[in-house]
Each structure stands twice: as C-alpha cells, then as structure tokens.
C-alpha cells in the first residue's frame, strides 16, 4: 500500500510496467513538442509579444503622449482627443487612474508601433472583443508593432485591478478600412 513502506526493500530495482513506460514516453514527446511549438510560432506565427521595452520616468512618458495627441488629434469624444496617427508611426497610449488615453483611430492592414505605459499603478491592456491582453507597468515603456486585421470599433478594458475605479477604466480604438478612410479624407478636403 502507498501508506506503508514499499514491499520490496530494494524498490528502485523493480522493473517498470510497460503501460507506465509507454505513457512516460508519450508525455515526454508531447512536452518536447509543445516546447518546440512555442519556438516555431516565432517563425510561422504572426502573434508574438515583443520584448522591446525601456525604462522611463512616468512624467516623461506623459509628456510624450501629450505631444503625440496634440500632433495627430482629429476630433474629440467625451472630452478625450481622438488621435489618428500615420500608418507605420509611433503611437502612444497612456494608462492612468482610470482611463486609457487618448482614443486612437487606426487603419486596417497597417502596422503601428504602439507604446504602452502607465503613469501610476499597474494596469491591464485588454483589447476587446479581439481579446489581446498585455500587462502595463509604470516606469516601463513597452512597444509592440500592432496590425489591425478587422475594421470597426474596439474597446480597451483594464484587466489589472487598479483600485476602486478599476471597472470604469476603458478606452477605445477605431479601425477604418483604407477605402473608407480615403473617402473620409476626400470629403474633408471638399468641405
């Protein structure tokens, strides 16, 4: 019994049962496969979290975001600037108690360098309903190259507990189709 000392004093010389051996072998191979698959995804997959990150003083980051917002602001929503950066550009998103700032407008199929950082507590960047979830820290500026693959309106939720207003911390990203975007531009020019 498992509750009593082994029947054989020299238990380590007992032969191993075949079922056990086969299962150990399968478990081993499966583990090895899963290990390799993570590596492989860096070559075959399009979703890998970047490790590019810099230490930054929170107030310095805040200034960068404000400058960026001023430069590319196209309109306002609920008192928050809606910012439309050029494709391929650096985009700055700020997490703070309790909002994601500013609202972004991106183009489908274009890649952006999105900077993420917090100026107070830890927050959780949770892009919905797409379901991309990344931790955001104060003092660390994390940069990911993001390419939206669908157009529409997307929410950013905070999913790292950040105090009593945590459940009010939201943000927004608009993604426009290229054609739609051009049409909008023409319209604006005509006016």
């Amino acid at each position, binding site marked *: 019994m498992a509750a009593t000392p082994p029947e054989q004093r020299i238990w380590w010389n007992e032969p191993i049962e075949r079922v*056990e051996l086969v299962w150990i072998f399968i478990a081993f191979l499966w583990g090895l496969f899963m290990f390799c698959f*993570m590596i492989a995804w860096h070559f075959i997959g399009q979703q890998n979290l970047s*490790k590019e990150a810099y230490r930054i003083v929170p107030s310095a980051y805040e200034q960068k975001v404000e400058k960026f917002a001023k430069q590319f602001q196209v309109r306002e929503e609920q008192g928050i600037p809606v910012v439309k950066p050029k494709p391929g550009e650096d985009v700055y998103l700020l997490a703070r108690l309790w909002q994601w700032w500013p609202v972004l407008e991106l183009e489908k199929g274009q890649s952006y360098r999105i900077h993420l950082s917090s100026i107070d507590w830890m927050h959780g960047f949770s892009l919905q309903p797409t379901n991309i979830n990344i931790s955001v820290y104060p003092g660390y500026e994390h940069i990911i190259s993001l390419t939206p693959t669908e157009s529409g309106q997307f929410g950013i939720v905070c999913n790292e507990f950040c105090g009593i207003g945590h459940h009010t911390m939201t943000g927004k990203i608009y993604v426009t189709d290229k054609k739609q975007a051009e049409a909008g531009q023409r319209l604006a020019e005509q006016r």
Partner: protein
Amino acid sequence: MTAETVIGAVGRQAEFRTCQYTGLKVDAGAQALIKANAVAAVVFLAIGGLMGLLVALTRWPAVHLLPADWFYLILTGHGANVLLFWIIFFEIAVLYFASAVLLNCRLATPKLAWLGFVLMVVGALMTNVTVLQGDSSVMFTSYPPMQAKPNFYLGLVLFAVGALIGCGIFFATLVIAKEEGTYEGSMPLVTFGALTAAIIAVFTIASGAIILVPAWLWSLGLISDLDPLMYKVVWWAMGHSSQQINVSAHVSLWYLTGALLVGAKPLSEKVSRTAFLMYILFLQLASAHHLLAEPGLDASWKIVNTSYMMYLAVMGSMIHGLTVPGSIEAAQRRNGFNRGVFEWLRKAPWGHPAFAGMFLSLIFFGFIGGISGVVLGTEQLNVLMHNTIYVPGHFHGTVVAGTTLAFMGATYLVLPLIFQREIIWPKLAKIQPYLFGVGAAGISLFMMGAGTLGVARRHWDITFTDANLSFAYSAGAFLMMGLNGIFAVIAALGGITYVLVVVGTVLFGEKIKGGHKLTFPLHSGGGATASHYGSEGTIKLPGTIILVAIFFVCFVLYYFINWKYLSELWLFR
C-alpha cells in the same frame, strides 16, 4: 550531541494508541495537533468560501450583490482565506499525519508545533482584520505600487513563519523515525509525497519572506520604492511554488485514499516517486508563466523557464494521472471486479465520500485545471487570456475542484481515524463531494468560458455603466457569468454541507470505541494478495489506458483550438 538534543525532544514520553482499523500507532501529541490544524483549516474555509459566494453573486450580472468597495474588499479576503489559510492549515495537518502517524512515530517537539500553530492563527486573524478594516483591498497578490496597511503584510509574514515551523517539525519527525527505527525500509509513498510538499514549502516561504518583508517595511515607510516588475517576479516564486505544494499534497492524498479504501498499491514505487521528485526539480524558475504578458522579458527566457525544455513538472502530473487510477484499477481487479473494461470503476466505493472526493478531484484536476494550465502557460497563448477571468477559472480547476475537493475527501478519513468520531449525517456526507465537485467544476468551466470571451478578472461591473467611454461584452459573456453564479451557489451548498458535517461530527459524532463498525468502512487487507513487483505484473489495465487516452486527446485538441484562436487575432510583434 545527538540529533535528539538538537531537536530538543529529550525525555518526551509520547503516549500512543493503536488504531483499530489501520494498526498504526498514533501519538496523542500529533493527534491533537492534527485536530487543531484541521479545525482551523475548516474555519477559514467557511469564512473564505462564504466570501467566494458573495464575490460570485456580485459577478452574476443579474444579481450584482455587493457595492464596488465591498466587492474588492471581500475578493481580497476570499483569496487570502481560501488559498492561503484553508489550504496551508490543512497541509500542516497532512504533514503531521504523514510523518508521525504513517511512520508510527512520535511527533518532534509538539510544544514548538503549537507555537507554529498559534503564529499561524494570529497571522491569519491579523490579515483578516486588516482587510475588513478597509484600505487594504489590494488583492492577495498585493502588487505595488498599490499599498495595503502594514498589518496586512505582517499577518502574512507571521503566518508564513508558523508554517515554516510546521515544516521543520515534519523534517525532525522524519529524522526521529529513522533513528528510532519505527518503520522498515523506505518511507511510504504518501510520506514521500508529503516530503516533496514540505521541501517545496521551504523554498516557497523563503521567497515569501524575500518579498513580503520588504513590502511590509515599504508600507511602514521605511523603504521608499518597490519595483513592480521585480516584485511580481519574486512574488510568484512564492505564489507559484505554493501551488506545487498543493499538488504534491493532494496527489499524496490520492494515493492514501486509494490505499485505505480499495487496497491500492503503487504500480511501481520507482515511477511514482520519480514523478514526485520532478515537482521539486522542475519547479519553474521564478514562475515565468506568470510573467508572459509583461514588458521587456525575452522570449527565450520565457520559453525555457515555462517549460524547462519539455514541461517536466507537467510530465510529473501526467504520470500520477496514470499511476493513481492505474493502481486503483489493479487493486479493484484483485478485489474481484474483473469483468469487462470498467467494472472496477463502476463497482468502486462511490458511496464513500472519501473515495468520491478523491476520484472527482483526480478527474477535475487533470481535465480542467491541468489542461487549461498548460494552455494558459504557453508563451504566445497567454496573451489570449492573461488577466481575464479565464485565470480564476483555471485555478478553481486546480485548487478548488482539485486540491480542495481532495482535502474534503481526506477529511472523511481524518474524522473517524484521528478525531475518532463516527460521521454524523452519512447521507449528507455521501452527496457532499458530488455537490461541491459539480459546483466547483461548473465555476471553473464557466469562468474559463467567460474569459475566452474577454471578461476581465477582479472586475466589479462588466456593463461599464460608470465608464466614460462605453463598451459592451458579448451576450455570451453575460450568459457565462450568470451560469458561473448558479454553479457558485451549488458549490457553496456543497461547502456549507461540508462544514456542517465536519462541525457536527467533531462536536456530536458518536465516539468510536473498540470493535465499532464504521459507517464508511476502510478496505480490509487487499494488499495481501498483491504480487511482488508492481501490481500490474499479472494484471492488465485496459480501463486506465482508455481514461488516459481520452485525457490525452482532449489535451491535444484543446491545445490546438487555442492556437487556431490565436492565429485569428490582430498581428503583433
């Protein structure tokens, strides 16, 4: 100086009784300590479980019970009470049982053990009181820069010191047993499993001290700054390895229950022991899988440390996943249930709550907690559910449907054998593991479902009523949270039943005297017919092979479904 004097146990005359059901010699000092720790465990489970129900009812959109500040407060209390206090008190009881009782030995220095117990109680109360006073709703993870009151951390530190003393007593008892020759040959497998748990516990508590003591000083204003990323790395060196303690402890109890209820013996000692050893050796470094969505950590660091090349700790669990049901099948076939592939399983003692708890725990831990854990801990897949309610879904599969259910099952052995009381209300006791098991499995699955649809964890309002920019989760997400609420009620009923049966039995259960026949009997001497080498030698195990094959197919399918889901996300590099 002999080891005796070092341990300080000179001259203690232990009083022993002999258990009429197992023939084990039980030290009265050990018995009293096991009782005290088990009772404390159940008290904190009752408090923490109630808090869990309140949390789940608040997260049920149609009910939305608590106001926001209370929700975050109670959620902090829930995590601390169940994950730390309930589980660790029970584990200390398991350590004393697996050393003193299983080895027929006296417990080393019961006085010191009582000191440890008192420290744990004081610490647990201190943290609870601090949480309830408000201003410390930082969640049990307490990530800076969010700060709790000093006593929050101090309570946890005291609790950890007490637990460390408990581990020390366990080691000392092993030494005494060896010196006094209270058992022959190697220690039993269950004790070996407990030893794994205790070794990991020492590592865990050391990491805890490294991080909680500075956090305490920081909240006192003696340290000015804690780097949040560094904190999280060290915190999870404690937080993750403590889960490895739980696994070692509950797997030990699986083996124990199999042994006592159907006369199971390990298929091969070597394999089962090696599997335990793997838990120690491959405890993931700094628990990298909690840091997969953090800035600045290198992909190769993440990959190597989540898997140590091939998921060797997972492999340990997969091995137990075969050898535990395998040893039960072998024993049942020896017991005469040899017809067909599954007679051994159908005719297993399902009416015995210890067996029901153990077997359900085995199934749920593997299928729900285990599979979801590997998926969640995969470098890229983590981005799909990091910090969503999928995470609590996963660990309610491991630590509630797995560990807690296993501990509940084991309680039905502890009550008659250690408390020496006949279980009161056997009908309630019989359904209890099923009720709690179904509830716990339900909340795990539905939280996982909601998380897959994006719902955030630790979140008071998924309708975002007060948010400046509106957002709405899908209707499916709301449905999942509602179902979670319903199953939370079922789990709570199971939990309440458990507490009632335990308290009723301890206070009013019939005292067990010589010659008493147990309502829920143990197995009588099936081990005698065991063959010499691993039990399989003469017996085939088709049932177990089928169970394990089903498990493996589910695992592989679920793994690839998630990769498919990942491949449909926006692109990011």
